[in-house]
Structures are given as C-alpha cells and as structure tokens.
C-alpha cells in the first residue's frame, strides 16, 4: 500500500471512530452555536458603541464558532491518539510495515473532515440568521480555508500532546488553557474598543486575537490584506511546529526495538 492509501485507511478509521461517538460530534457543532447565539443576543447593544465596525453583532460573532470548533478538534485529535497509545494499538501498529506519517495524516484528516462539516453548518446557521458577507462568495471560501487551517493548527497541537503524554486526561487538561486564550482575546469586542489597558495589552500579544480578526475581516470589511495575512500567518506559525512536533513524537512512540 502506498502512503496515500495507508493515510486514507487511517482517515476512514478516524472518521468512523468519531461518527460512532456522538460526544465527539455533537458538542463541536452545538456548543459553539449555542454560545454564539447567546453572545449575539446579549451583546447586540454593543454595536451602538461609537466605532463598532458593524451594526449586526452576528457579523462580528461568526468567527467565534470557528475558533471554538478548532478547540474541540484539538481535543478530539489528541484524545483519539492518546487512546491508541493507552490501548496498545500504537504498539501493535509498530509491528506492521505501516508508514508512521500515514497514522498522523489519517488521524488529522478525520478530524479535519469533522471540522469542515462543522464549519459549513456554522455558515448555514449564520446565513439563516442574517449574516452578511462583505467579501462575497470568494470570501466564504477563504473563510472556510482559514477556518480549516486554524482547526489543523489546534488539532496538531492536540495530537502533539496526545502522543507526547499518551494520556487522554492530559489532553483534556490542556483544554482550559486554550479556553483561557480564547477569552483573553478580541473575541467579544474589537481590540481598539477594549477599555481596560491591561486587557487590551494581553489581547494584542495573544495570537488567538489575530485568528479572530482574520476570520471576521472577510465578513465585516471585505478583503483586508493585513488582517488576512496575520490570520493565515499565525495559523501557519502554530500549525507547522505542531505538525512537526507531532511527527517527532509519533516516531518516538513507534520506535521499533
């Protein structure tokens, strides 16, 4: 079997594993949408603040489910790899001629498939609720691409932690850290409208702010090169080392003795 075939087989396994566990499918879709609905309802009046860039908070908040969905992708990727370590599947795999890269590629492809389906659902719900996209159809595609890259970045981080620790509990334990990063960013108000200096300073150095700003720039401003470059740049800067780190951890984990 070629690397691609092996990867496809592992991706099929990963997707089936995910689909068979409602707890891995429903929360990444439902939870971000519920939070978005609550925030849109509760913070609509914030659009009356001078300088707020849109008159509909939904246009601002649509980035939130993409980032939160990416956090769930990190947990799903990390947990399933940690489970493979815990159950001994990884050791048995080491005895086969399978290429290591296929396992990681397959796992991430499975998680990304779920992330893509979730992203489409977020957008469909958004459009049904009155979302207006300044960047047009092309912008929707770029938003999906950026959303998937962000999901890949977080999923790779989850995979790295899952492979390094071999513990599902450790992966779950990292979730609050990611959650803190999301809330200490410009997720709820534009950075320039954050009144507290210390909070604005944290949001400015927090890379997650630039992911939010890249995603919503397409919705609110149209084609904003700087926001998009920062969004894609930060996502890549997280994804590349995370994928490389996860590959190295996998090699260590599957060493044949």
């Amino acid at each position, binding site marked *: 079997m070629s690397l691609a075939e092996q990867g496809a087989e592992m991706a099929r396994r990963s997707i089936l594993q995910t689909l068979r566990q409602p707890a891995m499918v429903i929360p990444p879709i439902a939870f971000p949408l519920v939070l978005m609905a609550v925030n849109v309802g*509760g913070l609509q009046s914030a659009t009356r603040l001078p300088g707020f860039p849109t008159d509909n908070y939904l246009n601002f908040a649509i980035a939130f489910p993409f980032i939160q969905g990416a956090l769930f992708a990190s947990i799903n990727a990390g947990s399933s790899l940690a489970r493979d370590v815990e159950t001994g599947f990884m050791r048995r795999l080491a005895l086969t001629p399978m290429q290591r890269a296929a396992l990681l590629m397959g796992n991430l492809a499975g998680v990304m498939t779920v992330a893509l389906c979730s992203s489409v659902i977020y957008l469909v719900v958004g459009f049904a609720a009155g979302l207006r996209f300044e960047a047009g159809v092309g912008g929707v595609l770029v938003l999906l691409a950026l959303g998937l890259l962000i999901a890949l970045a977080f999923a790779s981080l989850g995979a790295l932690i899952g492979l390094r620790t071999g513990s599902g509990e450790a992966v779950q334990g990292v979730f609050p850290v990611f959650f803190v990063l999301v809330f200490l960013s410009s997720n709820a108000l534009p950075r320039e409208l954050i009144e*507290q200096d210390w909070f604005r300073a944290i949001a400015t150095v927090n890379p997650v702010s630039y992911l939010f700003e890249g995603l919503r720039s397409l919705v609110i401003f149209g084609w904003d090169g700087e926001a998009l470059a920062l969004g894609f740049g930060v996502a890549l800067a997280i994804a590349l080392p995370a994928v490389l780190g996860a590959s190295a951890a996998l090699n260590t984990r599957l060493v044949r003795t």
Partner: protein
Amino acid sequence: MRRFADVARGVAWRSIHRFVTKPQFLLPSLIFPLFFFVAFAGGLSNVSNVPGFDFPSGYTAFQFVFVLLQASAFGGVFTGFSIAADFESGFARRMMLAAPNRLGILAGYAIAALTRAGIVGGLLFAVALATGMRVHGDGVDLFGLVVLALLVNVTATMWAAGVAMRLRTIQAGPAMQMPVFVILFLAPVYVPLDLLSGWIEAVARVNPYTALVEGGRELISGGAVRVWLVYGVAVALLAGFAVWGVRGLRRAESAG
C-alpha cells in the same frame, strides 16, 4: 434525627476533605470563576458605555454578581459529578448500605457544596474588592447577596444530585452541566434586561434565573430589591429541585 446528622456530617467531611486536598478538584473550582470574572469585567467593561446602560456601581460589580451566582451554581453541578463518580466506583452503594438515614447522604453532599461555594465566593469577593469593585449596598444587602448565592448553590446541587442518582455514571456530566449553563446564559449576562432585544429578551423575561441575577445586582448597588420576587423564586426553585433530588435518591435506593 441524630442518625441523619451523623450521616450528613460523615458524607460532608469526606467530600470537603477530597475537595480541599486534591488540587485537580480545588484548582479548577477556584480558577474558572476568577477567569470568567477577569474576562467579562475586564474585556467587556466598555459595554457600560452603551447608551441606556445605567448601573451605579460600575461594570465590575455588574459582572461580579453574575460570576458569583454562576460559580455557586457550578459548585453544585461539580458536587453532582462527585456523586456520579461515587456511584461509578461502587462507593455510593456501600455508603447506602451503611447509612441508617439515607437522606443524610443528600444533606451531606449539599453541605459539602455549600462549603465549596463559600470558599470560591470568598475568594471572588476578595479579588473583586482588591481590583476596585464598588459596592453601594450596605451590610444587610451584602448578606442578602450571600444568601442568594447559597440558595442558588443548593438548588444546583439538588438538580445535579437528582441526575447523578438516576443515571449513576460520570458520563451523565453533560446532562447535569448543559441545562445549568444554558439557563445561566439565557439571563441578562452582559447588559441589563432592558437593553436586550429580540429572542433573547423574550427568553430572559421568562427565565426565572433573571430575577435572581437582577436581584443580586440591585443588592450590590444598594437599589430597590423586590425581595418577595427574588427570594420567592429562589426558594421555589430550591423546593422543586429538592423534591427532584430526594426522588433521585429513592430511585438509586430501589436500583440496589
């Protein structure tokens, strides 16, 4: 009565001991409310400049009340997690065999939840005051706010205990947590009720938790509190969920 008190004391001591001696239980309970307080009060303070937002004690106090009540509610839910874990490990079944009065078990968990809420609430108060929260209510108002938070805590404990004792597995965690989360966030979280619009305003107006949040905010700002409405709703919710919790205990008993 003595047997009831003995069982309640034993269960409460064990739960409190576990909570304060195990960092994996203690730290999230302390850190998450503080984090929500920082994120809401710090990140969203500009929302108080929205035309029509009128809260004399400022946005920090406005959010403090929500976070205090939220932490109290989640303290109860986390106690439900402990109950479910005790059933899953078989400890709860042995405890039910040994207890001469099983209502004492439920009371013991409730006392543990109250202690937990007291520790977390105390820390929240200290941090909020240290970061400059303005309190316009007097001592009686603050006492009323503390009582309100404790009523919310016991109500959430009874809800979560009812679920935990019916399902008897830690996998029931989302079933305990999600409804509480949804009810909390369908109240006026970020702005007063009058500034909400659309579907969330309609839902918040019929959400009983809205009366508690708004009442708590009136207490901290020294405003006119509709005492009968606020505490009437709180006590009615507690009574309803106490029945739910006791019936859950009976279901666990009959399940063997």
